């Protein structure tokens, strides 16, 4: 049944902005993004909202709903009481361009800093052969839709802008873990060391594993347990554990 929902939407740009109140019709089965679109269509034609698939797979409509980092297309109106005021703000960690649209280029800079997959020498694409059991850990991380909600909620950069230079955030540490665990990655043979780079260039030590990245992931990737902690353990193997360092063999 339709009802009038109360919305507070952040309107503004990089210089100034404020929360503004709106009343928008909500129908059964709708999500927050539907209301933002109705608001745009009926009251605020200049409202800036980034969106694309409306199916939780493109990662475009990331915002904060009642203070929690969410995909607006996957946040059902039925989880709120009818009289409740729903606050929608842009992601707090990134510079805002306009209204709910952020400049997420920080993430693209960090993405470029992760050396790409390095296949074994002499192996051409199409010749890769792997056991499913070996590659399945890395495949979990391939579910990432790059909505950057994990980056948004991570307090290391959310509360400390100065850390952005030295910390790549959970999304890209997960990317390092994905490649570090990959059965065919030969980066180490090529002279690299992904675990050491995770510690050094990507700032893994800044992560204090408070699991907010895992909590907000719309793909339910176990970012902390399956990528960040295993990566920390691999760093401990190489750097802080003289026993495993002494017995360290070529990666198997």
């Amino acid at each position, binding site marked *: 049944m339709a009802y009038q929902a109360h919305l507070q939407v952040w309107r503004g740009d990089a210089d100034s902005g404020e929360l503004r109140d709106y009343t928008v019709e909500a129908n059964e089965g709708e999500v927050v993004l539907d209301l933002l679109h109705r608001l745009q269509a009926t009251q605020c034609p200049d409202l800036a909202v980034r969106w694309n698939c409306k199916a939780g797979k493109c990662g475009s409509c990331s915002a904060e709903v009642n203070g929690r980092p969410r995909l607006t297309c996957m946040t059902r109106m039925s989880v709120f009481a009818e009289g*409740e005021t729903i606050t929608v703000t842009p992601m*707090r960690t990134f510079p805002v361009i306009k209204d709910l649209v952020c400049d997420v280029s920080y993430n693209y800079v960090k993405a470029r800093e992760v050396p790409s997959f390095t296949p074994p020498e002499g192996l051409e694409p199409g010749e890769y052969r792997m056991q499913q*059991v070996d590659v399945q850990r890395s495949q979990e991380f391939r579910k990432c839709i790059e909505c950057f909600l994990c980056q948004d909620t991570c307090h290391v950069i959310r509360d*400390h802008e100065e850390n952005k230079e030295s910390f790549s955030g959970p999304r890209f540490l997960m990317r390092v873990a994905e490649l570090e665990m990959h059965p065919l990655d030969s980066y180490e043979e090529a002279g690299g060391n992904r675990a050491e780079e995770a510690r050094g260039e990507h700032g893994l030590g800044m992560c204090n594993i408070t699991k907010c990245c895992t909590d907000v992931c719309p793909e339910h990737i176990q970012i902390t347990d399956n990528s960040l902690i295993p990566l920390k353990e691999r760093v401990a193997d190489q750097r802080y554990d003289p026993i495993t360092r002494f017995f360290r063999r070529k990666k198997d």
Partner: protein
Amino acid sequence: MSAPTTRAGRARTSARTLRTDRWWLPPLVTFVGLSLFVIYGLVRTFMNQWYWAPEYHYLAPFYSPCLSTSCVPGASHLFDVPLPGWFPPPIIVLPFVLGFRLTCYYYRKAYYRSFWASPPACAVTEPHSRYTGESRFPLILQNAHRYFFYPALLVAAVLTYDTVIAFHGVGGGVGVGLGTVLMLINAVLLWAYTLSCHSCRHLVGGRINHFSRHPVRYWMWTQVTKLNGRHMMLAWASLISVAVVDLYVMLVAGGVFPDLRLIN
């Protein structure tokens, strides 16, 4: 002092958080729970009595293994370290046991959130102006977690031995009391917590990239992974069970009430 939330270019909002749920409740519960355990542990350690109930062969977990010459007869294990009588025996072992919990990946999350508010909850601004995480001393020492894992295995083995001797009947033979049952539950929970540790998961198989070449280690890794998914629950359950068993043995050893015997 609050870290500014209005960095250059970011959306300006004055509120520390716009969350409307009771985000403060889980860290508060954690704070109270862990504080109660620490206070109980401190009091119990320096109490230095009522840890051995000779008629039932119950040894309080806080005093196990009892490695001091000052341990009451029957309570000591394997070898005795010559220490003055006023020196509480738990001080020899507790640093390892507490170190294991203190550096545990779950407890780190718990106390960073509840004691240090870093952050108090997800998407709630933390009250610190500077943050270096675990990249500097002293928190860089958290990387030594695996070195506390090995002694924790030994302690779990000793508590298992304590549980076995708790099946001693009053006056000989086999017997089971409420204390025996509690000690058995405690030993199971301690093993489950210890083996579900993230370092254990890494050491048994997580560090290898080709599971297909190591089927036994892969099998062990899958088993530890199953337990690891319940690490938080096991952390709390084993913490509570240690305190409950310790309290029960203290009350029985102190003569407050006799053990409730189920068999014998």
